[in-house]
Structure formats: structure tokens, C-alpha cells
């Protein structure tokens, strides 16, 4: 495939369009997607690339996201490199097939544009959709800008298709504040991307010449072992993820870690963020540092497998950790990310106070000032020793 875009210099491009362009560069064989709401420009643009004859792939427009993921399971089972994209209600409708994709060890790559779930009907950004899918057995990676979307999509195919992993992977981006925003993004030479990924050769595939059965019954004598095998595969994918990120950095540049840090040296308090709002939060960290507040930022990139040890090492010595979630686990532990962070820290001999703040729901903007206020509020809770289990911020009382 020729380079559709100029290589090596930043181009002003909408992130959804960039997502489609990089998927085409990754030489996918099959794209199955539900083409209307809640869809983004991603599959619309991929359909154009296929129709233009620039990508030799089957584009399957289906009647629902349930069917989209089912078609992806079928195409991945015959050994095709497979991609889909969805968000919010669409991801929820895929729910049961997500478990099947991971259970059958099919390396599908999906772009998830994180958006709210109804009711009330809301098409705007938050992370309610993906947090409901955290237990589906997929590798799950968050991004915070368009360049990361492009880079992590290439990495996602390489990670998913590694013989030691063979699991599906989700690349997340924030709805609207990323998906519909034009950013400067640098593209790589298509042939270099394809050489980096190689040709996908599945260890097992559906083939009439050698019949096999994918998806048999797992009776009680088998099911526990099957779950254990998947759990170990996802846990051990961490090693491959690190290898792929290192190989990517060597080949294309960039630097990716499971957990990124910002101004954490000597920080007594840490603000933990996930996704596109991390950049807004970083500006708040700068302002607070200017005021003499010893606060730093920890940004979670890898959501599954969850980097427990990394977080324990980074957060364990702090006085207070303030986790900002764009999802509410209603009447439960509060923020899903905060809940996981608490799990990472609980068995430490000494651990920080963890405050779970929830905001940015359904497209509600969170400003630099909001993040600064939230940190000050958290410091107050640490001082008083009376932190709530969780707190929804920016809500009118």
C-alpha cells in the first residue's frame, strides 16, 4: 500500500481519521462494524479507504455491535487480521461477545472511543463504557493524545498477535475531546509499519482442510482451568507489552510505560488520572507546584493487565493519592480506577490515604482550576483523616 499521508512530519488531522489511517497501514484483512450511532468517523473513513481501493480488506457493515463483534470473532478464527471500533451503547451491546473473543484467544484489535452510557441519553465523553468491560479478558490500553492513538494501535496488533499473548486488545481514547479533535500527528512509512507487524500467522485457525472446533462446551471439569489459562495469558502479556513498546521506540521513536509520571520527585501528594484529561491535570500540577504544593501526577496507561506492582512502588510512599475517575460504580466502591488502586496498596505495611473523586461524567468539562481545587480538597481530607469512600465533584447541590 502506498503512503496515503505524508510521512515523518506532523499533520493536522482529526484523531478518528488518524485512527482509521493507521489501521489501514496495519494491513487489516477484515473490518466489521455497525456503521451508525454510536459510531465515530473511524469506520466511516475506513470504509472510504477500502472503497478507494487503497486497502485490500473486507468491510462488513452489520446490523448491530453484537453482530460486529461476532463477525470479528469469525474472521479472527479463520486467521484474518481483524479490527472494529465502537463506543458507549455499542460497546455495551458487544459485552457478551467480548468474553468469547478473549476466551477463544482471538487477537482482534478494537478502538474504543470512551463515551457515557444512557440513561439519560448522552453521547458525550466519559469512561463509563469501558469500565463496564474491565473483566472481559482483553488487553486494555488508554491514550491521552492523537499520537498515542496511532502508536498504540500499531503496538496493539503486535501485542495481540504475539504467540505468547493471543488475546484481543482495546485502544481507548476519550470521546469528543480526543476523537473529534484535530491534532498534529506524525505518521510512519506504511511499509515500515507492515514490516514491524509482520504477516499474522495464527497458531490455530478454522480451515476446511484441517477441521477444528472453536468454542466447544467447557464442562465444570474444564471451565476453571480455562479461566486460569486466560488469566495467566493476560498477566504474562505484560512482558510482551513492554517488549513491544521498547521495539516500537527503537523503530519509530516515542516512549511508553504502563504508568507515566509527571513531577513526582519529592511529591507528598499524587493525582492519578486516566486518558485525555491527564493533560489538563498536568497544567494544574504546574500551577500547584508554582504555589509550593508538593504534588505530582501519575497517569495510568495500561488498564489490563493492571500494573499493581508499579503503582505500589510509585504511590506507596505518598501521603495522599487522589484518583480521578470519569465513571461512577454506582453505590459501590466509587471510581473503578480508585478501587483498583486501593487493591494495589491495601497489603502494603504503610499506605497513603486514597481519595476517589468522580467527575467529567457525560461530557462535563473539567478545567485546570477544577483539578487544582480537587487536589486541595484531597489534601484537606488527608489532614483531617476523614476521607469519604468516594465523592462526585462538580455536581450542583
Amino acid at each position, binding site marked *: 500500500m502506498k503512503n496515503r499521508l505524508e510521512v515523518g512530519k506532523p499533520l493536522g488531522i482529526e484523531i478518528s481519521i488518524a485512527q482509521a489511517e493507521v489501521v489501514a497501514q496495519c494491513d487489516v484483512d477484515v473490518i466489521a462494524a455497525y456503521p451508525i450511532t454510536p459510531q465515530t468517523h473511524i469506520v466511516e473513513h475506513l470504509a472510504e479507504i477500502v472503497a478507494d481501493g487503497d486497502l485490500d480488506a473486507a468491510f462488513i457493515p452489520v446490523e448491530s455491535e453484537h453482530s460486529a463483534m461476532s463477525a470479528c470473532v469469525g474472521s479472527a478464527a479463520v486467521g484474518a487480521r481483524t479490527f472494529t471500533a465502537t463506543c458507549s451503547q455499542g460497546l455495551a451491546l458487544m459485552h457478551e461477545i467480548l468474553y468469547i473473543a478473549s*476466551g*477463544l*484467544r*482471538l487477537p482482534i484489535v478494537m478502538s474504543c472511543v470512551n463515551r457515557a452510557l444512557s440513561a439519560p441519553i448522552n453521547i458525550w465523553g466519559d469512561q463509563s463504557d469501558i469500565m463496564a468491560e474491565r473483566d472481559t479478558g482483553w488487553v486494555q490500553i488508554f491514550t491521552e493524545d492523537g499520537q498515542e492513538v496511532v502508536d498504540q494501535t500499531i503496538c496493539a496488533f503486535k501485542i495481540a498477535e504475539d504467540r505468547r499473548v*493471543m488475546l484481543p486488545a482495546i485502544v481507548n481514547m476519550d470521546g469528543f475531546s480526543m476523537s473529534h479533535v484535530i491534532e498534529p500527528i506524525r505518521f510512519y512509512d506504511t511499509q515500515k509499519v507492515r514490516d514491524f507487524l509482520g504477516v499474522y500467522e495464527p*497458531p*490455530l485457525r478454522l480451515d476446511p482442510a*484441517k*477441521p*477444528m*472446533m*472453536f*468454542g*466447544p462446551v*467447557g464442562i465444570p*471439569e*474444564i471451565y*476453571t*482451568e*480455562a479461566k*486460569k*489459562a486466560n488469566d*495467566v495469558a493476560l498477566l504474562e502479556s505484560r512482558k510482551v507489552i513492554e517488549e513491544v513498546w521498547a521495539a516500537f521506540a527503537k523503530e519509530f521513536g516515542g516512549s511508553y510505560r504502563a504508568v507515566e509520571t509527571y513531577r513526582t520527585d519529592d511529591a507528598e501528594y499524587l493525582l492519578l488520572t486516566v486518558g485525555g484529561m491527564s493533560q489538563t491535570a498536568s497544567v494544574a500540577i504546574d500551577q500547584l507546584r508554582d504555589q509550593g504544593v508538593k504534588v505530582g501526577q501519575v497517569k495510568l496507561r495500561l488498564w489490563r493487565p493492571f500494573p499493581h506492582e508499579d503503582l505500589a512502588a510509585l504511590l506507596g510512599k505518598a501521603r495522599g493519592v487522589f484518583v480521578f475517575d470519569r465513571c461512577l460504580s454506582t453505590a459501590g466502591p466509587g471510581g473503578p480506577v480508585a478501587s483498583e488502586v486501593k487493591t494495589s496498596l491495601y497489603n502494603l505495611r504503610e499506605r497513603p490515604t486514597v481519595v476517589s473523586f468522580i467527575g467529567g461524567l457525560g461530557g462535563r468539562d473539567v478545567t485546570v482550576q477544577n483539578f487544582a481545587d480537587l487536589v486541595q480538597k484531597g489534601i484537606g481530607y488527608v489532614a483531617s483523616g476523614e476521607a469519604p469512600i468516594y465523592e462526585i465533584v462538580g455536581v450542583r447541590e
Partner: protein
Amino acid sequence: MKTKLNPTWRELELGCTVVEAGSSADYKTGDWRSFYPKTDEDKCIACGVCYIFCPDDSRHLAPRKKKVEGALYTHYFDFNFQFCKGCGICAAECPTHAIVMIEEGKK
């Protein structure tokens, strides 16, 4: 390759895939049955409808010679009770009502 009866998690095929074809023959389902089919061979005309409709592997051709109304039949259809789940489809479909379903444990 025969699949091991109780494999450890390390021994499972990727995604629990069954890599050899026709392995359902190794999975005996006959003990699911609560009714069993019985054929009255005087009524049976060896037409094979029961064989066609059987959803499992429990009907098979059995060589057996018999004359019915002047015609020589060389094969009949026997039950394989290792697989027959007792669904009764053969009895329902039999055009001569030669097959009846009888509760297990009763004559």
C-alpha cells in the same frame, strides 16, 4: 491425538479449541437418557427415516437380512445406546409407528 480426560490449565489447547475432527464420538451422552426407543421389527420397513432424523450418532446401519412382503432387506437401523439421549424424534418420525419410547427401568 486423544484429549486428556482432566487436563491441567497448562495442557489445554489455546482457547480450548478441539483440534481433531469428529471427536464428539469420544463423548458418550447415552446416560442423559430417561426414555429409550424400542423397534417392533415386524412393523419396520428399513426406510431409514429414523437414521436421517437422529440428531446424534445413535442410529447406524446394521447388516441383517429379512423378507418383508416378498422384498429382501439387507440392512436395518440399530440404536447405539452410548449416544442415544432418548429425545424420541425417531419415534415421532417413524412412518409405520414401529418405534415406541419406553421409560428406563420399565419393560
